C-alpha cells in the first residue's frame, strides 16, 4: 500500500520521519518518567509534584544559562540544586506521609504543585523565561533525504539512553540499587538489618528530583519556560509508568517509546485518515481530538490485557 504516491496523501518518507519524531518524543518522555517511576515504585509515594520539579529544572536551566551562557555548566549547577530541593521536599512534606493513605499523598503533593506554580511566578514573574539553543547545538543533520533533523533532538535521545543505561546499572549492579530494591520489597527488614532506610529514601527522592530537573533542563531550549508547564507532562508521565509497570525502569523506557510513537504518528495520520471517512471540516476538528485520546485508549487496552503493566516490577 505504501507506494510512491503514499497512503492517504502521506509519503512513506514522511511516515518514517514521523516514526523517528515519535521515538525522540518517547525518549524525552522517558527522561520525565524515570524519576517518577523510581519514587512511586520504590518508595510507594504518589508524587504529583514531579511535574513541578520538571518545571523548576527548566527555570534553573534558564537562570543558570542566562548567568553562564553554557548549557553544560547549567547542567552541572542544576544537579546539586535539584538534589537539595528534592531532599527538602522529602524531609518537610513526604516523610510524614509514608504510613498514610495514597489519597493523603495525592493531596499533599497536589498542594505542592500550587505552591511551586505560585513560587516561580513570585521569583521569576509571569512572563516566560528566555533560553535559546546555543549555536553549537542548533545545527541539523540530514538523516533522511530532504528532512534535516535537529542535532539537539539527537542529543536528547543520547541523554535519555545514557540515563536509562545508568539507572539500569545502578539498580541491578550497585549496592545502593540492591538496598533500594530490598527497601521496596521489605522495608522493616532492611531497617532491622541496620540500614538507614530513611536516609536511603531521602536519597531516592533527591535522585528522582534530579531526573525531573534534567528533563526540564533538556526541554527548556525547545519549550516555553513558564509557570505550570509541568502538569501536561505529568499526565503523560503517569500514563507511561502505568503502562510500563510501576517501578520498572525497563517498562518506563518501552512504554515511553510506545506512547511517543503512538502519539506522534497518530496525530499526524488521524486527521488525514478521517478525511477518507467524513468531510473536510469535521475531519479537521475530530481528527486532532481523537488523536489526543489515542494514548488513553492505548492505555486502557494494555491494562485490560496486562493489569500490572508491561513489565510488572518485582517489588512489594
Amino acid at each position, binding site marked *: 500500500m505504501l507506494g510512491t504516491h503514499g497512503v492517504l496523501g502521506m*509519503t512513506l*518518507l*514522511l511516515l518514517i*520521519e*514521523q516514526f523517528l*519524531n*515519535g521515538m*525522540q*518524543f518517547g525518549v*524525552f518522555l522517558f527522561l520525565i518518567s524515570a524519576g517518577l517511576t523510581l519514587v512511586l515504585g520504590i518508595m510507594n509515594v504518589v508524587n504529583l509534584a514531579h511535574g513541578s520539579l520538571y518545571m523548576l529544572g527548566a527555570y534553573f536551566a534558564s537562570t543558570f544559562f542566562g548567568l553562564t551562557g553554557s548549557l553544560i555548566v547549567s547542567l552541572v549547577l542544576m544537579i546539586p540544586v535539584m538534589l537539595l530541593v528534592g531532599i527538602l521536599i522529602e524531609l518537610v512534606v513526604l516523610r510524614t506521609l509514608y504510613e498514610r493513605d495514597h489519597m493523603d499523598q495525592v493531596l499533599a503533593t497536589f498542594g505542592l504543585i500550587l505552591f511551586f*506554580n505560585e513560587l516561580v*511566578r513570585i521569583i521569576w514573574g*509571569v*512572563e*516566560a*523565561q*528566555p*533560553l*535559546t*539553543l546555543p549555536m553549537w547545538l*542548533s545545527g*541539523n543533520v540530514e538523516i533522511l533525504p530532504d*528532512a*534535516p*533533523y*535537529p542535532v*539537539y*533532538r539527537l542529543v536528547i535521545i543520547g541523554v535519555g539512553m545514557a540515563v536509562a543505561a545508568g539507572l539500569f546499572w545502578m539498580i541491578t549492579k550497585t549496592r545502593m540499587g540492591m538496598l533500594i530494591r530490598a527497601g521496596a520489597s521489605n522495608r522493616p527488614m532492611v531497617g532491622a538489618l541496620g540500614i538507614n532506610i530513611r536516609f536511603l529514601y531521602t536519597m531516592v527522592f533527591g535522585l528522582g528530583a534530579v531526573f525531573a530537573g534534567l528533563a526540564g533542563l533538556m526541554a527548556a*531550549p*525547545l*519549550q*516555553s*519556560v*513558564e*509557570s*505550570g*508547564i509541568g502538569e*501536561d507532562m505529568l499526565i503523560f508521565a503517569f500514563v507511561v509508568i502505568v503502562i510500563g509497570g510501576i517501578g520498572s525502569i525497563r517498562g518506563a523506557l518501552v512504554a515511553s517509546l510506545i506512547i511517543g510513537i503512538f502519539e*506522534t*504518528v497518530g*496525530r*499526524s495520520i488521524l*486527521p488525514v485518515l478521517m478525511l477518507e471517512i467524513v468531510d473536510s471540516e469535521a475531519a*479537521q*476538528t475530530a*481528527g*486532532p*481530538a481523537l*488523536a*489526543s485520546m489515542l494514548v488513553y485508549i492505548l492505555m486502557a487496552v494494555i491494562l485490560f490485557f496486562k493489569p500490572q503493566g508491561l513489565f510488572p516490577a518485582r517489588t512489594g
Partner: protein
Amino acid sequence: MKNQVLIAAAAAAAIVTAPAITAPVAAESVKVGYMQGFAGGRGIFGRYGFEGFELALDHLGGKFGGMDVELTKKDTQHKPDVGRSVMNEFIKKERVNFVAGITWSNVLAAVWKQAARSKTYLISANAGWSGMAGKNCNPYYFQASWNNDMIPEAMGKLMKKEGIKDVFELSANYQAGKDMLSGFNRQYQAPTKGKILYKLGNNDWQAEISQIRATKPSAIFGFLPGGMGVSFMKQYKAAGLDKTVKLYTVYTVDYGTIRAHGTNAIGSYHTTFWNSDAKTATNQKFIKDYIKKYGKHPSMFSVQGYDAALLIDLGVKGSKGNLKDHKAITTAMRTADIKSPRGKFTYNVNHSPIQNYYKREVIADADGKPKIVVRGMVAEMAKDSHYKKCKMAW
C-alpha cells in the same frame, strides 16, 4: 483575593492643575470593577492590561472625569463561571458604574448579559468575541481592543499584498482558533498547502514541522498564543525550517513574549493594531511612563487596558457628574475622543473600533537582541465584518 484600592482625594492635591469640571454631586465617586484572569502563565494578558489601566488612572490624576475613583480588582481565573460570580458581585454588592477587563471570549460571552441587563457599562480590554460585534451589541458594551477576526484579517490582507503564493495554516482546535482561520482566509483568498488544528496546550511540534516541511509551502500562517508560540518558534528555528519557510503569526509575538522568544523570533512577521514605533507625543509618553512605572516595555494588552480607562474617563466627563445619565455617557463614549497610544480611532455602530492595522517584524538590534519594528500600515481604518448584524440605534 479582594484588592480594593481607594484613590483618595489626596492624590488629586499633588496635581498642579485642578480638574476643570466640578461635579455637582461632589460626595459621589465613580465605582469601577476590574476583572481579568491573572493566574498562571495565561495571566500575562491580564497583568499587562491592568498595568495599562493603572497607568491611565495615574495620568488622569487618580480621577475619572474629575470624580474620585473607587476601583475594585478581581481575578476571574480564566473561567466563565467565576467570571459570572465576579460580575454578579460587582453589580449587586459593589454597585459599580463601570466594569472593565476580560481576557477571554468565553468569559465575555458568559458575563455580558448581566452587565447589559443591569445597565452597567462593560468595556472589554481584550476579548473581542464576534457575538458582541454582531447581534449582542448594546449601548452598555464598548470594545477597547478589536474584534477577534481583525488581526488575522489584516494578516490575510498583508500576505496577499506581498504575493505569498501559498501558505500552511496552523491554528488551535477551538472556536477562536477557527475564527482566526476564517478571518485570515476572508482576505487571503489563495490556496493553502495544508492546515493543522492542533490541540490547545501542545508543546512538541516536531510532528507538525515535519508535515509542514513535506508540503513545501512559501509561508506559515500561525495562531500560536502564549507558551505554545514560544515553543513552536524554538522548534521551528531548531529544525532549520526558518531557512525555507517564512513565518507570519497573530497573537504570538508581542512585547510581553519577545524576551522569551529571544533570537528565535527574528525574521518573523505579525500584524497588530498598535503602531508601537509611532513618534506621537501620546505614544512616546505612554511607553516612557510605563517603563518607568513597571520596568518593562508595554505590550498591546497594556494599550488596551490604558484605553479602557480613558474611555471610562470620557464617559464620566460626558455625564457631567450625573452617573445616572446613561444617554450622556454612551453618547460621550461613542465619540472615542481619547488620547490613545494607538492614535485616532472611531467607533462603528457596534461599538467596535474602526482603526488601523500594522505589519511588524522582529529584527536583530545592534547587540543581536530581538527588536520589534513597525513595517508600515496594512489596513487603514478597517471595519470588522460583523457590524451589519448589529441593529443598535445611535
